[in-house]
């Protein structure tokens, strides 16, 4: 099996789970965030179900020297709590609370015939590219400038 087929398979299972758990319905997500109103704790159980699996699976997988189809594991290495982490998470939370979509359900909803999904995806791409344009291009220039030191 190629890495591409594996990615498709992983996405398929993930997307099926998003729909089964109703996380592709933004009202369900907003109801989870609405602790002062019609609170619906379902999302917490989705997280719990996912975490039980990933917590155990990641430990089993971590004992292997390398993934089955690739040469090495690619894991985040950053560990410091910096301002972009906190500010970025806060901005994401505001957007999540406004629209009721995070990236996974927004993309998964593209096949469900709702007009909201394509609109959301364009806005999501615009936000992502705006961040890249504002910060990443500049920091790359800075990195290049200091690379020889």
């Amino acid at each position, binding site marked *: 099996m190629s890495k591409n087929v594996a990615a498709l398979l*992983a996405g398929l299972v*993930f997307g099926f789970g998003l729909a*089964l758990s109703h996380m592709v319905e933004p009202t369900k997500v907003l109801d989870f965030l609405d602790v002062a109103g019609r609170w619906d704790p379902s999302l917490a159980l989705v997280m719990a179900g996912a975490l039980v699996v990933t917590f155990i699976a*990641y430990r089993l997988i971590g004992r292997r020297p390398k993934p089955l189809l690739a040469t090495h594991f690619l894991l985040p290495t950053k560990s410091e709590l910096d301002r972009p982490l906190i500010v970025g998470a806060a901005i994401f*939370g505001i957007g999540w609370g406004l629209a009721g979509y995070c990236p*996974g359900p927004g993309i998964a909803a593209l096949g469900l015939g709702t007009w909201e999904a394509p609109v959301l995806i364009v806005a999501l791409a615009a936000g*992502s590219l705006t961040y890249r344009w504002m910060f990443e291009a500049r920091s790359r220039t800075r990195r290049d400038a200091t690379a020889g030191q």
Partner: protein
Amino acid sequence: MENFTPISALLGGVLIGSGAAVLLWLNGRIAGISDIFSGVLILQSGETAWRALFLLGLVAGASLYVALNPAGYTPRTGFPVALLIAGGFFVGFGTRMGGGCTSGHGVCGIARLSIRSVIATVVFVLMGMLTVFVVRHLLGVSP
């Protein structure tokens, strides 16, 4: 809590976790969807095809569930388009600045016991709750 659906939530969560586990086990990658999505927006050789196929899988997987169980999905109607656009933009911007979303930080990062991911998840859930409180209860918009 008349809208609480514990069984489908748990089972769906188990599948979401399984998809993430498969991606790490086979490809050695974290299933951070905001990262995969933003990665597909700029073409990188050797990195674009698997990302695009993972996202295609997301779409196909959700469609498959709804095809098998049409009563299992109710599209939202009458939602203000301005809120949708503003929300989507903030989600795109914030997940890039914070380095992850509900999947990358919330599911994969917490499973790796990353302090960054635990803090990010607490922050975005609390800000989401605050935002919904303002929109639904202070401004009286009840979508």
